[in-house]
């Protein structure tokens, strides 16, 4: 294999003249972080809400949440993303759809990817939160209701604080998945990290350097998230309470 390595490529200027290829990668990293963190906020809030709904004593609400989970778990992420990006604007009322199509393409791509990743991950978060709630002894809920808390209060002050601590480890892996899944947004042209890596290959013809750099950045994100979540786990630990395992 004859390949001429050139790590200096990252510091050479881009065709547009403003900035270097390293700048491209960092810009991609920025979009990846923005997209993933935004999607995680949606996924966490919506997923927790759906997880609670799956355990409430109401058949309709529980069924609705279960239907949501099945729908978002059984369609590939790529199909969901293309549906948010290509299909949704067509199905909205004409005026609104046209307004979306005429807006800045970068904003369109970002919003579609954000909603897609958020809703996709929410289904997974929902299942984790449900598992956490169901793993609690029945006595917790009964005791909460017996001291006069309403059902929402029981969830807010007793059940969720316990369940969330139990499911922190699986939630960490879902959080990591958001960053990895965000790479799918490159297919609709969002200039996130893996897209910028591909662009670098096209412009510089130095594929190995570009891919190694992108891969290392993803590994770095991974490591940071893992350390961050370990810190959260330590902070959230209840004294004298058995955690996870």
């Amino acid at each position: 294999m004859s390949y001429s390595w050139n790590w200096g490529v990252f510091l050479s200027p881009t065709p547009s003249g403003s900035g270097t290829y390293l700048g491209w990668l960092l810009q991609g990293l920025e979009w990846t972080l923005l997209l993933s963190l935004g999607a995680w906020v949606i996924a966490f809030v919506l997923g927790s809400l759906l997880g609670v709904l799956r355990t409430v004593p109401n058949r309709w609400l529980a069924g609705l949440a279960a239907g949501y989970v099945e729908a978002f778990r059984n369609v590939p992420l790529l199909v969901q993303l293309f549906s948010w990006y290509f299909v949704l604007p067509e199905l909205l009322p004409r005026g609104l759809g046209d307004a979306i199509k005429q807006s800045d393409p970068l904003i369109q791509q970002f919003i579609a990817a954000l909603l897609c990743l958020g809703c996709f991950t929410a289904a997974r978060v929902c299942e984790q939160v449900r598992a956490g709630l169901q793993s609690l002894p029945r006595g917790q809920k009964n005791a909460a209701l017996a001291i006069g808390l309403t059902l929402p209060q029981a969830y807010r002050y007793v059940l969720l604080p316990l369940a969330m601590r139990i499911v922190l480890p699986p939630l960490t892996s879902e959080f990591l998945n958001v960053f990895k899944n965000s790479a799918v947004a490159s297919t609709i042209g969002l200039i996130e990290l893996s897209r910028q890596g591909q662009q670098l290959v096209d412009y510089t013809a130095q594929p190995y350097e570009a891919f190694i750099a992108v891969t290392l950045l993803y590994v770095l994100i991974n490591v940071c998230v893992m350390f961050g979540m370990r810190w959260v786990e330590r902070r959230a630990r209840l004294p004298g309470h058995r955690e996870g395992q």
Partner: protein
Amino acid sequence: MYEFDWTSIPGALPILGSGMLMTLRLTLVAMVVGILWGTLLALARLSGNRMLGWLAAGYVNLFRAVPLVMVILWFYLIVPTLLKDWAGLGAGTDIRMASALVAFALFESAYYSEIIRAGVRSVPRGQVNAAQALGMAYTQTMRLVVLPQAFRNMLPLLLTQAIILFQDTSLVYVIGLADFFGAAYKVGDRDGRLVELLLFSGAVYFVLCFGASLLVRRLQKRIAV
């Protein structure tokens, strides 16, 4: 309001069918190779040999830290070069399928190995001790006692992972391979009926995956001891 026109789907069924075949082939090969290679990785991590354990753990953690899209692109970069150097293939040969197969098999084996590792560890320690007391060697213990029980326990998880894999194969879109999703996208793009084709492909994936997951749930109830 948008007016649906589903007429381009019946004529496109042969293309979609061959796309589905490609999707199934990718899924099957990646699953079989992934489980075999994943078992070896899991055994390496459980072997107690420091060096082997480290290598296997490094492999698994690296693949699990990188997005699948990047893995597919990586192998699309590496496999053609290797094939050209080793097999002397011309530049014109289409090696997208080969590189996709390699990418999925190696990527999935990292995930399968984690499932299998947990499965092996779920077999009670006494089973290993009893096998050794009978005079079985390590390979015999694993092959005849531990792995059969472990695989029975983790069958539902392995199949669930296969359903995820089936969905993930749609990502070969990034190297332009016409699997089921790629075929649907191409037809939709050609006929200007992207909305219908995307909804149709989503519905097909949903029916297949939901049906398969119901079957796995039933299996799980039946083999539960």
